[in-house]
């Protein structure tokens, strides 16, 4: 084994030791095989908590009705009952602390998402009462005539 032929092997061993050292320093301690085995579960365990900690922005109707019971009741009686408040008003986030007010979007674009007429028989879209946005009072906001919280009560306007 005294032969010079083995010299390059020292370099190889050096490289291996270096990699091992780097591993010990760089790899997070909670990195390992998870419940789904090596193929599907090789990961840093702490990352699961990172994802769980993402902030919830859409708080759903239950959150809104705590203060806006009147609007909620209105909506519940209407064909729009299934539409979440936040679909049109934007995510609640920490409202009323932050932001103190939610923007009220009166734009036609919101309404024509469903009410632009597309006669598609294969989906529920065909059954929704619709308009042709280009010809149906293109200059006006829908809410001028229609009450969004309960479109049946159009007379209210």
């Amino acid at each position: 084994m005294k032969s010079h032929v083995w010299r390059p092997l020292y370099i190889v061993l050096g490289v291996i030791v270096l990699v091992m050292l780097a591993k010990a320093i760089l790899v997070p301690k909670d990195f390992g095989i998870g419940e789904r085995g090596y193929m599907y579960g090789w990961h840093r365990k702490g990352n699961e908590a990172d994802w769980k900690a993402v902030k919830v922005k859409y708080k759903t109707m239950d959150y809104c009705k705590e203060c806006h019971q009147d609007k909620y009741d209105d909506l519940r009686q209407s064909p729009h009952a299934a539409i979440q408040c936040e679909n049109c008003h934007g995510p609640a986030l920490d409202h009323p602390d932050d932001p103190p007010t939610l923007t009220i979007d009166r734009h036609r674009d919101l309404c024509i998402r469903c009410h632009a007429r597309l006669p598609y028989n294969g989906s529920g879209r065909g059954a929704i009462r619709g308009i042709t946005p280009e010809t149906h009072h293109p200059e006006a906001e829908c809410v001028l005539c229609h009450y969004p919280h309960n479109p049946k009560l159009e007379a209210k306007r």
Partner: protein
Amino acid sequence: MVHGEAWTIKEFFCYPNEYIYWTIQIVMYPFMTGLVAGAFVLSSLYHVFGVKQLKEIARFSLVFSFALLPVAMMPLMLHLQQPQRGIEVMMTPHFTSAIAAFGIVFTTYALIVASEIWFVYRAYFVETATTLGEKRERGLWEGILYLIYRILIMGAWDISHEAREKDEKAVKILAGIGIPVACFLHGYAGFIFGSVKANALWMTPLMPVIFICSAVVSGIALCIVTYTVTMELRKMISARKRQQKPWLPSTDELKSAEVQVVTMTSKYLLMFLVLAITLEILDLVFRGYTALKSWDILRSVIYDKDFFKIFVLQYGCGNALPFVLLLLPRLSLKRVVFCSLLVLMGVFMMRWNVVIGGQAFSSSFAGFMEYRLPIWPETMELFKEGLFGAMFVAITPFVLFFGITRILPVFNLKDSH
């Protein structure tokens, strides 16, 4: 701007998140590793199988392969969105991924090539270092060289006959191990593509084999071109020197040796070329014959959208034309070089047609994507994944080769290897 949006044009229906994510750098990656593997295989033909005629080009291609090595990694680093994390492939390798073993295979291969070079050059190191050591006064460059050689020798100063025989044996063994590793390194690049079941064009078990064959082809072709160009340069230099020192070898002597080596090498080029073309055609025929669900869209990509790139540039100019030219009688040096250049272009187009062609259609099979190569590097992203990034990768091996040959001269060595 979303990554990929700048150079992708969608037609008909593609999924909203689909872009050409693997671009020119991923074309360069198999092209460069192919050159590495090919150059190494060429040098091993002499070291392992004792093809004496290749002696002169063998050392050349070995050193060239070494110069190409770091460059095989460059396109990957330029491609990664988080290049600073690239080391993680060694830290937490996930071996179910075809990319995970890259670090290990690549390092193993690099170490093999480096040690082989060490054994080939050890005697030269010792001799040069001894001569330099005996010199009273050393210039700055000589001083640096002396230091470098002393480090490179790693204390193995013994250049007795037995020691040198051991060196030779080691070279032979390393070259022998090196061939499968080089093939693995590159077949493995083919596996990265061939194993993607989500991509209809890539998924074929033939991919690794096709990649190896075309790799050897391109490696040999590049060695021929570089070798000839270097020889031409040397001739020019020696012609100038001969005016002062008439005892140096004449241009004709240099030339006859050169023609012999190059034509011999071109025979091997031809052999691997036939293999590569056969496999590629087989793949194409098989796809057409079995006509799976994906064939409709593949056909319109292969025979319509990419017809020029596949059939004219790759098969026509890159394969068929050099094939015929190499077989015609009275092979001249110029013709071999011309053919080698065509072959290089053909292999590059093959990589392009695989990597970009595989993303030319949506995985919905209902739409197409077109890649517009970014030319002017307005942003870092456009540089990295554009023409200039690719040029940067293509030029580097020659710069490195020049640098390395300052320490490891590849010509006019009078040792036995």
